[in-house]
C-alpha cells in the first residue's frame, strides 16, 4: 500500500516535471478551460446580481396588497376605500401618525437610457409619508425631499445611474407637465432605487386617477402576524384583494429573468464545456502520447497501471484547476460589481443591478473546470494503462 502510494507520487512527480516540455498544448488547454469558466461564472453572476437586488428589497415584515388576480402593481387597482380597509386590518404596526400602511400609485414613464439614448420604461411611484417609514433604510443622499402638493420628484440612485436627465436641478416631462428633480434617494440597494418617487396626490391628478391606487405596502408587527392579516383581508366581503409577503412578490417578479439567465448560463456552460472537454482530451492524449515511451518503460519495469492512470489524471486535474482558477478570477476581476440594468419581465420596467460573482460561483467555476479535467484526462489515462506492455513497448 505504502509502496503503491510511493509509486503514484513518483510517477506523478516526473509527469509534472516533464510538463515544461508540453508547455504549448498544456497552456492551450488551461486557457480553453479558463475561457469556459470565465464565461459561465460571468453569466451566472448576472442572475446572482438580480437575486441579490431582489433580496435587498425583501423584508419579511413587509407585505404588499394587490387586487386579487393581479400579479404586478401595473395590473392592480385599488380604490381609496379599499386602501382604508386594508389599513384597518389586524397585524399592522401603528405609530403616532397612524398605521404603517402606504397606498401607492405606480405608473411607467419613458426616459432615454444612458449610453444608448434609447427610450426605456422607468417606474414612477406616487407615495404618501408612510412609504418612507415602511422602507426603513430609505434616505435622501442628495438634494431634498419633494414638497407634498407640488410637481416635484426624487429619483432613486439606480435610476439616476441608468437614465439621462435625472440629475438634481433638471426637469422631466410627464403627462404633459414639467417635474423638477429635487433629490436623489437610496433604499438599501433595493428595487426602489430604480424608481422615481412623487407625491401620490399629485400623480393621481396628473394621470386623472381620482382617488385610486394600485398597491398597499404595509409593515407587520412581526413576520408571524402575516396569517392573521391575510385571513382578515380575504374574509372581508367588501374587499377583493391579494395580500402577499414581499419576498413572495419579488421572487415571482424575478423568477422569469433569473430562470432565463440561469438556464442560458447553464446552456452556454454545457456547450462551451463540451468544447473544453475535447480540448482537454486532446491535450491529455498528446501528453500521454509524448510520454508513451516513459509510460511503457515504467510498466515494463514493474510499475502498476493505477499509478500511471492516477498520474495522468492528476496532471489533467492540475491543468484544469489552474484554468478554472484563472477563469473564475478573470470573471471576478472584470464582472463583479459591474453595473447593468435589465427589463423586469413582469412590469416591463428596468431593474438596475450589479453582477455578483459570489464565492459560491467561484467554487462552482473551479468545480466545473475540474469536472472538465477529469473527463478529459480519464480516457487517455485508461488507454495508457490498458495497453498491453509488450504492445506499448513496440509502439515507441
Amino acid at each position: 500500500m505504502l509502496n503503491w502510494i510511493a509509486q503514484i507520487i513518483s510517477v506523478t512527480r516526473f509527469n509534472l516535471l516533464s510538463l515544461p516540455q508540453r508547455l504549448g498544448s498544456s497552456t492551450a488547454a488551461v486557457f480553453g478551460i479558463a475561457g469556459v469558466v470565465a464565461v459561465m461564472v460571468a453569466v451566472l453572476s448576472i442572475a446572482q446580481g438580480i437575486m441579490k437586488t431582489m433580496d435587498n428589497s425583501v423584508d419579511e415584515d413587509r407585505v404588499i396588497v394587490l387586487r386579487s388576480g393581479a400579479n404586478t402593481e401595473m395590473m392592480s387597482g385599488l380604490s381609496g376605500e379599499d386602501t382604508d380597509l386594508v389599513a384597518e386590518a389586524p397585524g399592522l404596526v401603528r405609530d403616532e401618525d397612524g398605521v404603517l400602511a402606504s397606498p401607492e400609485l405606480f405608473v411607467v414613464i419613458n426616459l432615454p437610457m444612458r449610453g444608448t439614448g434609447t427610450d426605456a420604461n422607468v417606474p414612477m411611484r406616487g407615495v404618501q409619508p408612510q412609504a418612507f417609514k415602511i422602507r426603513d433604510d430609505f434616505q435622501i443622499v442628495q438634494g431634498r425631499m419633494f414638497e407634498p402638493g407640488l410637481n416635484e420628484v426624487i429619483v432613486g440612485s439606480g435610476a439616476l445611474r441608468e437614465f439621462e436627465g435625472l440629475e438634481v436641478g433638471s426637469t422631466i416631462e410627464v403627462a404633459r407637465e414639467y417635474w423638477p428633480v429635487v433629490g436623489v434617494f437610496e433604499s438599501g440597494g433595493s428595487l426602489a432605487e430604480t424608481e422615481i418617487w412623487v407625491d401620490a396626490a399629485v400623480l393621481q391628478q396628473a394621470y386623472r386617477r381620482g382617488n385610486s391606487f394600485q398597491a398597499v405596502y404595509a409593515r407587520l408587527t412581526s413576520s408571524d402576524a402575516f396569517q392573521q392579516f391575510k385571513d382578515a383581508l380575504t374574509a372581508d366581503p367588501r374587499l377583493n384583494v391579494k395580500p402577499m409577503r414581499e419576498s413572495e412578490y419579488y421572487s415571482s417578479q424575478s423568477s422569469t429573468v433569473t430562470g432565463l439567465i440561469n438556464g442560458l448560463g447553464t446552456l452556454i456552460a454545457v456547450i462551451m464545456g463540451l468544447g473544453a472537454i475535447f480540448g482537454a482530451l486532446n491535450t491529455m492524449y498528446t501528453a500521454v502520447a509524448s510520454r508513451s515511451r516513459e509510460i511503457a518503460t515504467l510498466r515494463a519495469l514493474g510499475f502498476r497501471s493505477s499509478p500511471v492512470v492516477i498520474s495522468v489524471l492528476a496532471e489533467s486535474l492540475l491543468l484544469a484547476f489552474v484554468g478554472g482558477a484563472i477563469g473564475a478570477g478573470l470573471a471576478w476581476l472584470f464582472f463583479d460589481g459591474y453595473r447593468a440594468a435589465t427589463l423586469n419581465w413582469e412590469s416591463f420596467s428596468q431593474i438596475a443591478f450589479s453582477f455578483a460573482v459570489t464565492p459560491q460561483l467561484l467554487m462552482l467555476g473551479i468545480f466545473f473546470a475540474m469536472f472538465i479535467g477529469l473527463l478529459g484526462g480519464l480516457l487517455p489515462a485508461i488507454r495508457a494503462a490498458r495497453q498491453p506492455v509488450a504492445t506499448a513497448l513496440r509502439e515507441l
Partner: protein
Amino acid sequence: MADEQVAGAQSDAPDILVRVKAVDKVFKRGSEEVHVLGGLDLEIPRGEFLALMGPSGSGKSTLLNLIGGLDRPTEGQVEVGGQRIDKLSNRKLASWRARHVGLVFQFYNLMPVLTAQKNVELPLLLTPLSRSERKTHAVNALDIVGLANRNKHYPRQLSGGEQQRVGIARAIATDPTLLLCDEPTGDLDRKAGDEILDLLQALNREQGKTIIMVTHDIHAAARATRTLYLNKGQLTSEPIE
C-alpha cells in the same frame, strides 16, 4: 547472493533457470493471424550468457518478452526460477518483473527529466528499500558501470554509450535473477558497443548474472557463452541460410 548461485551451479547438475516448453505465440492483426513462435523449447542454465540471433521479424523480441513476463504465450509454458509465469495475473506479473528481471533496451528508455541516479533508483521504488538504501544501491550500480561521477547528470548530458550504461545500472540495481537485453548495442558505434559488451561479460563472469541478449551483430554474439538462432518459429544452434 550471486556467489551462492555460482556455487549452486557448480555442485548440481545443470541448474536450469529458464524453461520454455512447447511455446506457440500467435498475434492477431485484424482477421489475420501471425504465427511467430511454434512449439518452441528452450532451457537456459543459471549463469549463462545467451545470445539470440535471427532475421528481423523472426520473433527474438517476442521470445524475450515471454521470458521476461512482458507478454504471455498463446500455448505452452514459461517457467523462470521454478515458477510458472505464464499463469500470473497482470498485477502479479508486474511485481514479479520488478523483483526478478532487469531490462536493457536498445534506445535506453531513460526518463529525460530524471538524473542518472534517479533513473537508477526508479525500479528500487518497487522494493521495500528505504530512501537512503535506494540511494546506496543506485550509487553502487552506477559505480559498477563506471559512471559514479556522473550521477547528477541528465540523460541529455550523456553520450549514447553512457546512457546505455545508466540503463544497465538501472537493470542491475535491484539485483535481478535475469538480465534481458534487446539489442543493447544496436544504437551504438563499435567502440561504445564494445564497452557495453565488456560490461555485460563482466557482470556474467564476475557476478554470475544470467543474461539473454538479442543481437544482430556476430561480434556481440561472440561475447556470449552460447548463441542460438531463431528461424521460422524455432531455435537452432546453427544459422540457417
